[in-house]
């Protein structure tokens, strides 16, 4: 009973009243005062005065005791508000304020636990969003951006500062993306579309309306399909190229056969000429089919390489001999620069000779007159640009085939190692070739764990490099 506040206030006052009125009654009963109304009045006044003063003092003391825990509570709450979530009141009695403080402490404990759980959940979501490859934008019902992840910022070229809290149109910018978003806003249904945002950015965009606890948010997901699209282009080009490459000799064969049928057979000299033409076309077709088979064998890894330590000179000399006559005829200088102290390389000689063969063949083909240089050097002696290309590779020897020919346009350079890719069809036609040489070269070099690349300036010539590991 005594722990209750009202008794702790009431009892002191009751004692006070009893004590003072007792003393007053006692004094009034003394012989000095008895029968003297003046003394009696004074005694009563003094008693009342003492009671009043003591009551005020008591009230001050008691109220201070009551307000102290409240002040502590205010202080603790302020500390919590200013970020110290561990602020608690450790001192409390068993009265009502004590009870209140205990409950208050429990409330704060529970809250901070919930906050911890929510924070953890939010952090998890944030890291998922941050490391996702797809772009994600979350917009509220009015179309203001609430969240945007790094992938979305990268794809759309924006920053958090520019996007957050601004209308989503300012972030999307592209008319098809905005159109998709508007359509979703109108129809309240998921919208999907493939959008070409720039020449080198192809996105699949999904805009979904999500009802979340009574309020609508929009989720925009952007998937980068650029690579897939590029692969598709390569595949499509390959099909159209191979059809074209097969059709040309076939059409020519057909013309020859028809001419022979129409009477050229009766004219032996003409017939011989036509037959040799037919033979040439058949050779071209055969060579192409063989190279295709070869390519698919190398690509699928069915051709085991017979690697052995080989001198670089042996890899270059033999293919070059075959081109000497052709170079003399075309008035092209064939220069070889191989230092004597080159380390041996790990190579399948016949395969690498094929690479050199293809590269030199190309160089001669695109150099009407001038110079074709085949050189070799250790990676440590290589110029800086070459060393950069070899960053991270084991010690290697680089073989370079440089020409002073027509060169390759910059926009074609990344694609020349694709099957059938020919930089300028009008220009390369009539120079023969199946369009597979560089693709084969690349696969052979890669099977050797080497690297192959090209540099070129239009009109100045091209240089093809490939590297082979030293043994």
């Amino acid at each position, binding site marked *: 009973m005594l722990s209750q506040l009202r008794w702790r206030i009431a009892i002191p006052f009751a004692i006070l009243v009893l004590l003072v009125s007792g003393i007053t009654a006692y004094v009034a009963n003394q012989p000095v005062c008895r029968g003297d109304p003046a003394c009696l009045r004074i005694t009563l006044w003094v008693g009342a005065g003492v009671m009043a003063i003591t009551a005020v003092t008591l009230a001050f003391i008691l109220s201070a005791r009551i307000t102290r825990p409240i002040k502590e509570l205010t202080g603790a709450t302020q500390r919590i508000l200013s970020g110290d979530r561990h602020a608690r009141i450790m001192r409390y009695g068993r009265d009502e304020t004590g009870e209140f403080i205990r409950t208050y402490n429990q409330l704060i404990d529970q809250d901070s636990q919930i906050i911890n759980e929510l924070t953890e959940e939010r952090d998890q979501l944030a890291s998922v969003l941050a490391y996702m490859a797809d772009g994600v934008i979350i917009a509220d019902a009015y179309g203001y951006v609430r969240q945007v992840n790094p992938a979305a910022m990268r794809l759309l070229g924006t920053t958090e500062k520019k996007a957050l809290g601004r*209308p989503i*149109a300012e972030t999307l910018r592209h008319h098809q993306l905005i159109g998709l978003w508007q359509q979703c806003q109108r129809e309240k249904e998921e919208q999907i579309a493939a959008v070409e945002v720039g020449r080198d950015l192809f996105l699949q965009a999904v805009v979904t309306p999500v009802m979340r606890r009574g309020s609508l948010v929009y989720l925009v997901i952007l998937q980068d399909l650029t690579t897939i699209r590029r692969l598709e282009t390569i595949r499509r080009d390959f099909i159209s190229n191979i059809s074209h490459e097969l059709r040309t000799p076939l059409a020519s064969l057909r013309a020859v056969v028809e001419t022979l049928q129409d009477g050229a057979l009766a004219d032996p000299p003409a017939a011989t000429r036509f037959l040799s033409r037919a033979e040439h076309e058949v050779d071209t077709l055969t060579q192409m089919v063989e190279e295709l088979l070869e390519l698919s064998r190398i690509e699928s890894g069915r051709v085991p390489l017979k690697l052995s330590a080989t001198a670089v000179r042996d890899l270059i000399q033999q293919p070059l001999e075959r081109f000497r006559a052709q170079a003399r005829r075309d008035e092209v200088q064939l220069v070889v620069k191989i230092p004597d102290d080159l380390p041996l390389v790990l190579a399948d000689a016949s395969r690498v000779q094929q690479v050199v063969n293809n590269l030199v063949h190309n160089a001669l083909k695109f150099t009407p007159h001038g110079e074709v240089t085949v050189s070799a050097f250790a990676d440590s002696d290589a110029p800086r640009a070459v060393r950069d290309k070899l960053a991270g590779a084991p010690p290697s020897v680089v073989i370079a085939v440089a020409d002073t020919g027509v060169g390759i346009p910059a926009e074609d350079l990344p694609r020349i190692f694709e099957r059938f890719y020919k930089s300028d069809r009008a220009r390369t036609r009539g120079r023969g070739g199946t369009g597979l040489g560089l693709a084969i070269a690349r696969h052979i070099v890669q099977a050797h764990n080497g690297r192959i690349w090209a540099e070129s300036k239009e009109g100045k010539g091209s240089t093809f490099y490939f590297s082979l590991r030293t043994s």
Partner: protein
Amino acid sequence: MTRGVFEHQLEKLQELLLIMSSQVEGNLVATAVALQHADHTRSQELIEADAHMNAAYIHIEQTCLGLIATQQPKARDLRLITAVMTIGGELERINDYAKGVAKINLHLGHEPRLTAVADLCAMAEKARLMLTQGMNAFLARDAAQAYAVHAADAEIDALYTQIQQDLLAAILTNVQHTTQANKLMWAAHNLERAGDRIGNICERIVFLVTGELIELPTAVRPP
């Protein structure tokens, strides 16, 4: 609180303009590509879509007038509203030029296009880029960027001259090309005008940022 509402309205207004400009950007490129591939369906769509752009402009204009009447904006806010109104008008005109190119495509029928049409596409792509960057400058309130975009109009003019020469050469080599070359000349002229309009938009952005209404000379250097 009323300030907050007004600011929200200004943001929405800016968004309307941005949506309109993104549409015009798309239409500029689409109309040139349709011309290159003799894609009549696409051109027809673009011609019909012009009505939407006109409606979009009217909507923007009405919103601007409503804001001026009800909020009595001052200084920067007033400049923003008038700038949006003017830029909206320029965008509407640019889209008319895109529509003009689409009409030329329909006139040309299915005859194979002269090679100069590739440069026309490049011109449209340049114009689109200028417009995108111009709107970036608008969003960022960046006068220097607006100057830079304005200066890029010279590239469009250069392409225009190039196309004119190529088309003349095409006529000289084969008189039968005259009709097509003449029409392509018109298409190029349309795009060249579109570039000038984008220049006007840039002037308006400079006004919005600095409060100075100036006519930028071509190939101006940023201060």
